[in-house]
């Protein structure tokens, strides 16, 4: 039995040695016959000699022979494939030449950024609403607690429709808050992205049209603490978990109390007194927000004693400018392909 085991080892070494020298399919065939040939193959002979062993020894050695057979078979196949690959005729090409591209179109960064914002709010249980861009004075101002002749209207430079004193281009997406609250009863948890218009002469930071996203939550027991929690989660998801967030008192006619929300400057991390982005303050103003003014709730027949809510608004262009460090807001609307196509990678 030991003798046989020794033989098995020897055959494997012999095979490996011979396999090294196989250079052609013919030689490979010879090698195959030499070891696996049905009549005179080494392995066939080995199997024949099993007969001389005791019934206890037979399966042991049988197994070893089988393993060797598997080994040889797989090695022969490997050599066969290598030989085939070597002999296959392939035209000589310079494979270092550049590959072909499929000209994929690029998304507009504002649309893409808006989508990102929407996705974060979907995750937080919000839905998305929209509304008309040509609005009435009532929805754009009056229902939002801007009385006629109120100086607060000066902050929202308005473009009006010719021939119709009651119509204007919405200066914010807030009128959709009113429309949403007229349409349905609380609980309400919506965001409203969209185009807004201001009478502004275009310059690097002002445009007569830009995109805004507005949010509104109304329910029983909604508090300023909820406003803070919601906006902090949103901003952390949009920017980074590491940013610092600051709420400061502010004023909007349609919220009370009102707040302005700043995030820590992600460009200089508050360490550069000369920082171009935060002007050395370490903070970037990012959102306006507040508790929905009781008068606004009354205007849509929601009882402010029973319900409360919060609202917020953010410039999409302005925020995208900050995120991508784009210095001129006009570049979003010039639609230069060299600008737009960069966002294929984003």
């Amino acid at each position, binding site marked *: 039995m030991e003798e046989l085991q020794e033989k098995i080892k020897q055959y494997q070494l012999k095979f490996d040695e011979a396999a090294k020298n196989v250079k052609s399919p013919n030689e490979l065939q010879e090698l195959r016959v030499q070891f696996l040939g049905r009549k005179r193959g080494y392995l066939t002979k080995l199997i024949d000699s099993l007969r001389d062993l005791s019934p206890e020894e037979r399966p042991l050695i049988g197994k070893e022979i089988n393993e060797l057979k598997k080994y040889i078979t797989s090695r022969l196949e490997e050599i066969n494939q290598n030989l085939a690959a070597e002999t296959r005729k392939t035209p000589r090409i310079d494979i270092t030449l550049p590959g072909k591209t499929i000209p994929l179109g690029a998304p507009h960064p504002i*649309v893409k950024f808006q989508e990102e914002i929407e996705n974060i709010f979907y995750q937080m*249980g919000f839905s998305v609403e929209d509304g008309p861009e040509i609005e009435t004075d009532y929805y754009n101002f009056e229902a939002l607690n801007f009385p006629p002749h109120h100086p607060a209207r000066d902050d929202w430079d308005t473009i009006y429709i010719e021939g119709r004193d009651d119509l204007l281009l919405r200066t914010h997406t807030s009128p959709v808050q009113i429309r949403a609250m007229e349409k349905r009863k609380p609980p309400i948890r919506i965001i409203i992205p969209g185009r807004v218009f201001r009478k*502004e002469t275009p310059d690097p930071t002002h445009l007569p049209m830009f995109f805004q996203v507005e949010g509104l939550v109304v329910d029983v027991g909604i508090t*300023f603490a909820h406003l803070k929690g919601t906006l902090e989660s949103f901003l952390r998801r949009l920017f980074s978990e590491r940013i610092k967030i600051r709420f400061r*008192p502010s004023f909007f006619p349609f919220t009370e109390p*009102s707040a302005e929300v700043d995030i820590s400057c992600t460009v200089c991390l508050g360490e550069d007194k000369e920082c171009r982005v935060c002007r050395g303050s370490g903070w970037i103003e990012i959102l306006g927000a507040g508790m929905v003014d009781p008068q606004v709730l009354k205007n849509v027949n929601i009882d402010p004693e029973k319900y409360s809510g919060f609202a917020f608004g953010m410039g999409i262009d302005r925020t995208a400018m900050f995120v991508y460090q784009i210095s001129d807001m006009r570049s979003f609307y010039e*639609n*230069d392909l060299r600008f737009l196509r960069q966002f294929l990678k984003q």
Partner: protein
Amino acid sequence: MRISLDWLKDFIELDMSPDKLIQVLNSIGLVVDEVSEAEGDLILEIETYANRPDTLGHLGIARELSAALGQPLKEQQWPVTETSEKTEDIIDVQVFVEELCPRYCGLVVRGVKVGPSPEWMQRRLRAVGIKSINNVVDVTNYVLYATAQPIHAFDLAKLAGPKIIIRQAKKDESFRTLDGTELKLSPEMMVIADEQKPVALAGIVGGENSAVTEDTRDVFIECAYFEPISVRQTAKRLGLQTDASYRFERGTDISFPPQGAWMVASLLCQFGGKVTRGLLDIYPHPRKKRTLILRHHRVHELLGVEIPAEKIESTFRALQFGVDATQPGSWKILVPYHRVDIEREADLIEEVARFYGYDQIPATFPPLKQLEPPPSPAKKTIQRMRSILFHYGFNEVLNFSFMSEEDEACFASSRRAVRLRNPVSSRSALMRTTLLPGLINNVAYNLNRGAEGVHLFEWGKIYFWKNDDAREHLSLGLVSTGLMAAKHWSSPQEKSDFFRLKGAVEALFSLLRYEPINFLEEEHPWCEKGVSLIVSYKGEPIGFLGLLRQEIGRKYALKQDVWIAEFDMGYLLAKQPRAFRFQSVVKYPAVIRDVSFLVDSNLPYQQVQGFLEKREIPWLEKFELYDRFTGASIPRGKVSLSFRFVFRHPERTLEAEEVDGFMERIIRALKTEFGFQLREGGKIDK
């Protein structure tokens, strides 16, 4: 609002670093936008709000700081030198329009030496950005910037008599302002007049005819309260905005005019003036302070944090509000006159929050009690539309919603454009009635910057009148010109053409399952003759595609072929597309027959396609036109069309003989209907 630190210290002690001061101001909502140093003073540019006119002077900022720091305001003295004359013997004020001018105070200062102001006053005015004129005018500005109370000084000698009349202007009454602007007034405007003429436009600007000059000796000081709406309407109508009107239209402190008048008088006494006895104070119906109820539980309900009663009370006391705590659980709050913004309980709660500190309020998440409705199917369709177009190589653009008169002339349509009353520029005089002018401008812009191929789409609203309604419709515009892809070493360059665009359009509507779409050969005013198709869905036209007319292209400096298309997505999105249904894959093999015909070259392919689609051909899975050519081997007036027909039976393998039978029927039908000739060498597999 520019605030001088040096000036602020007249009102309150401030022992802190500028950084700390800015932080305190920020925390109560007085945002410091900019800090600069001038003449050893620190100038803070503070953002103010339309509802807080009380912060439009140094006193107001000091009051806020006093509450934030828990530090009292400094007492101020305004001593005067008096003459023996009584004010009422010199001036007789008659208010005809009490509803517009509920309070009017006046004093006369005699013997003022008009000249330059002292250096300290000039420096302070410089700090807030005001030019020094003479000591009398400077004093009025000084008091305005100190207290937010506008003051006007008249040259007493120039008034026609003792009477000062506050009245409506007469129709077309003319008035010349201090700076020489000639104005025509109308009756809804309020003027200050003597017996002959208006001498000031109330609350806005003084008249040239009564202005203080170097020759002035005696001065009449006006310190009044004018109703905000009246001042605002007049200022707006006349296109005037002054430091005074800015404050009056936001609301001044009605309790302040006497103090304001004495401050001015006291300062003028420093220039040799003597004040008449007794302040004129026309205030026939003194107003009560506003009383509001603040419920403690509402503070918690709105802010989401328990704030102790003591903190709430001390905040209001520090802000000079009256606090009556006799009712348990709530307070009666008396609002000081300078806080015109505090009208409701919510306004009081904001004060509590501001001085408690927004950063002290916890951040929690509102409980989700009910799910919001899911995104609309239209939203998903638009997302799919975008990804299909990206795949076809179109880049997404966004243009302004405006267009110019020239655009309107080039792209006139049956849609009546919405015009803007006060557009930003003539280039944006109207709302766009089509997306194409924007897209074509984008093409020109990119070609001018070296782009060799421009393929763009925009989806957005177009606007037009439908009767008296301003309508907004979602539109989709496409433009394509030039090379399809960057040059590549391995293949010839492919340029955009009609079929590139048509292929994208076909794929778009097919993948969105808006099927069937029909194309009609019809002229379109924006397209070259014979190169436009009207696209319809279920018989309704939804848009067009074609080659931009050269005359229009030239207006946008375009010389090359530009392929254009526009579709009414709003209409489509309102329709339900065909439902998506999965079909199991048939495992039996197809039988394929390729066949070529000679066809009259004038025959529109669409007719052939329609004919074949309508015929009931057994087990025909699909057919494709895979080749089309003319040339030397083809007779004149003919074209060779090669079709591939694919047959498949869902439950068994088709026999070649069966399929031959079907093919015979197809060929016979095409021969009879259109005179197709089977081409020599065209293979029929028998």
